[in-house]
């Protein structure tokens, strides 16, 4: 074992060695280590390079707020993760890790040249450096930015892990398992309330884990913890570790991300890696503690410089001394305990450098006892050491005067600039904060949710105060739950209370303009950058933040926000609360996309709706396409056929004899009741009063704005019953719209609406021989053209099944649509296939359906229309009941912009060279005009037509109806196509085939 690890100390298992690699080199750590503590135990401080300047960086914290020690971890194929915080990643056997932002290697990085080119990267460099000349953008700036931007490497493979999600309802959720959270839980659990206590660390205890000398209720801190956690378990409290409360949303809805397997040597097969909990809590206690602030001075980012509290954690929790010769720089009492603990563990304390002049005598005495030199009223003005700190330069400060410097050698420099209450979750709720001038920090003020904030999270310091506050929060929550609980006295011995002061940059005798005094380590923002931003006119903290990127890294400024604010406020000569704080947003810490997606990926991303005939299509080699949530047979290729060949064959077979098509996905709504016809008259553009029972009609639905929303054939089965069909994707929207009008505008109408889409299987039969195929199967109905003409509907029996039979056509051929109860759909299909064998019946898919309808100029709502197309634009004026006093959208059809000239209108297009146009291609009138050309429309539908022997297209073109016969131009990458404007009906314009 290395000399930095103290045998027997800490909460790690000294009997269990775990080996891992970092940048290819194998290291030994202990079970219970993080990657950071294990590397420190091996004397390794250099863990990464910074984002912008590629400066060597070491670990600064021991928690999830870590800005520097970001590593890539590998858990096997497809399981690479960038930007994992080395302070959070627990050691497991065979863990492979690597440092980031370095090239070619961590100890020698060519990118560090950026460090010399500081001026290029100062505040606002995104806006300034890369502005000019324009020609530099493609060749110089963008490749440079792409190369430099981003932390770590993105994984390149699909994440093979599973992620889970769960709902949880509870009376009380406590966030943070430190002293305050445990105290609150102890009180609340005894009241009988359901309590959930969560903590992001592998074990509960918070700061107590780093302060074993503290005694509570007469017990050592760790023994007390064991005791109380058992008590909580016995009381039925749900204790969740490795669980981060990432977001706090409305009405006490809190999202928790639980990490389940990343710490295991061999995760169970198929176990989820992470689980997202959606918690709804009646009451919430936020006991998230406080985060230590760095001090800001030149060279405060060298490897070996870290927070004093972190060093204390490494020592007491992991048994790791962070150095042999440790200097301590502080403005807060808490750092003294780190110094004392390290001194007692055998490190030399080079000095305690305190920015304050007045220091508590008990701390001075304790330092003296240990032979530690305390420098009062001193500033740090520089550090030395390339890959690890070698010395710190300190100067006495007297008023404005900075005295002569002194160099203190050290191999680690601990710093404490005081503590910031962790109020991120509270901020998510839009809870307001108020500035506390005494502690130079923001404290929680007005609450918007049923929550209670306890402990260091609201600025308290020392275990006695924090425990008492936790009890109080627990009692308040219990009271809000209308339960009763007893207060509890939790006496503390060896407490470590303390206070401190805050600073902007520490005073220096050198030119502040040359200092690299970092405020935001992760985004490489210095104090100078912040002052420059203010000089260049930024006044609001939100502007300063965006201009400098301070606090915009993945740690959301957990360490930098208050320091940044103090400096910006100083530069603006304002009080910090007048400058304000930037907003924290979820998630609290970076969270994997997998955890958010949960089960919703791959096949379970969205449900796939299948028709009753889908198994037949699958068995017969159909190629499928998704249409809304449905999967539909697209075409049925035979051996050796591509899509083009299959579709051409299907089209020809249907026009020549008979084609069969699964139309079950059509939306179906039953409109029933005494006022059904009145309702239909008001909803649809068409007149319905005189449509006789047994007849059907094409129906057109508009929005109140006059634009086409949906269409479909509607059959009147009896005076008070309509069978409405909608587009496949529009069914739910149309029903919602109908319900809206029925419930809120015309509640007096006696009408019932029922979705019947999934109750009916629908088979379309088309072609000159369609009747011959169908007739033998039909009972109770004469299918002859006089008795059952085009646009008829009847109830009858088909293949022994109860059926609603429509005679209609979406192909231009003699056509029928047979609806039978869904469970019989496959039986009907098979009976028709059998009956059609003599007529070479041909199953076809959606592509052939599209071609056949386009040859006839039948529109598809949503393809040939786009939400700005009126019936006039689409050439559907004939579908409007002109005599009706009103219907949805009627008034809009006389709006000035809708009757005006130059609207885009639907027309047909035929290219002069016989080539096929691309759907979506833009249309211009004059191809010789200068760029950018005026586009007058676009191609909406385009197909090869086997029937006609040439391609056909539909398009919307400005004033298109007045341009019949004109030539328009379609510029494409390989040249401009000339196309002639035609009618949209390309085939059988007289409609003779329909009436066969």
């Amino acid at each position, binding site marked *: 074992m290395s000399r930095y690890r103290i045998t027997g100390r800490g909460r790690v298992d000294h009997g269990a060695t775990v080996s891992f690699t970092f940048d290819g080199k194998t290291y030994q750590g202990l079970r219970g280590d993080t990657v950071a503590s294990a590397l420190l135990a091996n004397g390794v401080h250099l863990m990464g390079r910074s984002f912008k300047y590629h400066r060597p960086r070491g670990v600064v914290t021991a928690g999830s707020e870590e800005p520097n020690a970001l590593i890539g971890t590998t858990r096997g194929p497809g399981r690479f993760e960038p930007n994992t915080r080395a302070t959070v990643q627990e050691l497991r056997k065979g863990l492979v890790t690597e440092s980031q932002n370095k090239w070619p290697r961590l100890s020698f990085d060519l990118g560090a040249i950026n460090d010399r080119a500081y001026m290029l990267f100062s505040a606002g460099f995104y806006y300034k450096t890369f502005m000019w000349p324009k020609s530099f953008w493609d060749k110089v700036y963008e490749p440079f930015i792409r190369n430099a931007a981003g932390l770590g490497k993105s994984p390149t493979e699909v994440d093979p892990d599973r992620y889970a999600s769960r709902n949880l309802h509870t009376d009380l959720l406590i966030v943070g398992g430190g002293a305050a959270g445990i105290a609150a839980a102890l009180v609340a659990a005894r009241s009988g309330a359901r309590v959930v206590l969560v903590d992001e660390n592998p074990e509960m205890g918070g700061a107590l884990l780093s302060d074993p000398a503290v005694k509570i209720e007469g017990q050592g801190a760790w023994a007390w913890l064991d005791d109380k956690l058992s008590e909580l378990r016995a009381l039925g409290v749900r204790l969740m570790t490795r669980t981060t409360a990432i977001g706090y*949303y*409305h*009405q006490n*809805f809190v999202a928790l991300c639980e990490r389940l397997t990343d710490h295991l040597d061999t995760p169970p097969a198929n176990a989820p890696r992470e689980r997202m909990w*959606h918690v*709804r809590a009646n009451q919430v206690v936020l006991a998230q503690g406080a985060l230590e602030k760095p001090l800001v001075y030149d060279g405060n980012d060298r490897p070996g410089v870290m927070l004093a509290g972190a060093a204390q954690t490494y020592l007491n929790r992991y048994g790791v001394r962070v150095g042999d010769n440790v200097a301590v720089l502080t403005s807060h009492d808490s750092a003294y305990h780190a110094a004392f603990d390290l001194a007692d563990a055998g490190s030399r304390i080079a000095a305690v450098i305190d920015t304050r002049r007045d220091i508590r005598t008990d701390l001075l005495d304790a330092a003296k006892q240990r032979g530690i030199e305390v420098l009062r009223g001193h500033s740090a003005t520089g550090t030395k050491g390339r890959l690890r700190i070698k010395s710190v330069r300190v100067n006495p400060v007297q008023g404005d005067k900075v005295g002569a410097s002194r160099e203190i050698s050290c191999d680690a420099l601990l710093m404490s600039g005081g503590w910031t209450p962790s109020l991120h979750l509270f901020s998510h709720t*839009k809870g307001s904060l108020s500035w506390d001038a005494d502690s130079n920090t923001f404290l929680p003020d007005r609450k*918007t949710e049923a929550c209670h904030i306890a402990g260091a999270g609201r600025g308290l310091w020392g275990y006695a105060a924090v425990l008492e506050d936790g009890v109080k929060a627990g009692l308040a929550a219990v009271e809000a739950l209308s339960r009763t609980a007893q207060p509890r006295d939790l006496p503390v011995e060896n407490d470590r209370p303390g206070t401190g002061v805050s600073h902007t940059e520490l005073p220096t005798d050198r030119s502040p303009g040359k200092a690299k005094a970092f405020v935001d380590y992760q985004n490489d923002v210095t104090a100078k950058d912040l002052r420059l931003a203010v000089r260049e006119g930024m006044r609001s903290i939100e502007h300063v933040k965006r201009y400098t990127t301070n606090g915009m890294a993945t740690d959301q400024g957990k360490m930098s926000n208050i320091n940044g604010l103090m400096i910006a406020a100083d530069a603006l000569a304002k009080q910090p609360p007048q400058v304000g704080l930037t907003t924290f947003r979820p998630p609290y810490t970076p969270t994997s996309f997998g955890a958010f997606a949960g089960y919703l990926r791959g096949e379970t991303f969205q449900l796939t709706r299948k028709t009753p005939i889908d198994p037949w299509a699958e068995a017969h080699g159909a190629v499928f396409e998704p249409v809304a949530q449905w999967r539909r047979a697209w075409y049925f290729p035979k051996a050796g056929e591509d899509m083009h060949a299959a579709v051409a064959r299907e089209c020809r077979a249907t026009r020549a004899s008979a084609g069969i098509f699964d139309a079950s996905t059509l939306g179906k709504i039953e409109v029933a009741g005494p006022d059904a016809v009145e309702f239909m008259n008001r909803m649809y553009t068409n007149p319905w009063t005189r449509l006789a029972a047994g007849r059907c009609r094409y129906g057109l639905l508009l929005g*109140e*704005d006059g634009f086409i929303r949906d269409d479909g054939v509607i059959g009147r089965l009896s005076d008070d019953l309509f069978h409405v069909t909608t587009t496949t994707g529009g069914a739910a929207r149309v029903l*919602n719209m109908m*319900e*809206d*009008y029925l*419930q*809120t*505008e015309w*509640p007096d109408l006696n009408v019932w609406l029922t979705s019947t889409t999934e109750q009916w299987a629908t088979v379309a039969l088309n072609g000159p021989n369609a009747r011959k195929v169908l007739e033998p199967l039909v009972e109770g109905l004469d299918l002859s053209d006089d008795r059952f003409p085009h646009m008829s509907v009847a109830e009858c029996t088909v293949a022994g099944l109860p059926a609603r039979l429509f005679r209609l056509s979406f192909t231009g051929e003699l056509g029928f649509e047979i609806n039978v109860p869904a469970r019989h759909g496959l039986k009907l299909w098979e009976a028709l296939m059998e009956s059609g064998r003599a007529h070479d019946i041909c199953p076809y898919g959606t592509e052939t359906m599209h071609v056949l309808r386009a040859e006839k100029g039948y529109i598809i709502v949503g393809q040939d229309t786009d939400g700005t197309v009126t019936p006039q634009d689409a050439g559907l004026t004939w579908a409007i009941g002109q005599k009706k*006093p*009103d219907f949805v959208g*009627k*008034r*809009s059809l006389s*709006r*000035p912009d809708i009757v005006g000239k130059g609207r885009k209108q639907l027309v047909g297009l035929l290219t002069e060279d016989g080539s096929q146009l691309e759907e979506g291609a833009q249309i211009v009138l004059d191809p010789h005009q200068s760029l950018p050309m005026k586009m007058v429309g676009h191609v909406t539908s385009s197909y090869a037509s086997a029937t006609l022997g040439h391609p056909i297209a539909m398009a919307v073109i400005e004033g298109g109806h007045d341009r019949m016969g004109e030539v328009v131009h379609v510029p494409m990458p390989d040249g401009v196509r000339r196309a002639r404007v035609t009618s949209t009906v390309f085939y059988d314009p007289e409609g003779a085939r329909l009436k066969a």
Partner: protein
Amino acid sequence: MLLIHCPYCEETLPEAEFAYAGEAHIARPADPSTLSDEEWRDFLFIRTNARGTHFERWRHIHGCGRFFNAARDTVSDRFLTTYKAGKARPDLSAVKEAAE
């Protein structure tokens, strides 16, 4: 995720069961043909966009299917009350007092 009280089901349920349906109390004119272009434009497109209390419609689309009205604060997102379609705007003074 908000919790929403359906005045028909008389239950408070997660937002995922509901769909937003625009501003409330905008009745379709009884005879649109008598409206001027400007009046019709206002009916179609002009909305309050309130900062603060906003009267709006929701549908309990994955529940009872009913449209209903709500008063909601657009700053805090909080529901002040919900009420059945066709009812007049409620007096919110009591609700607001309780919320403060």
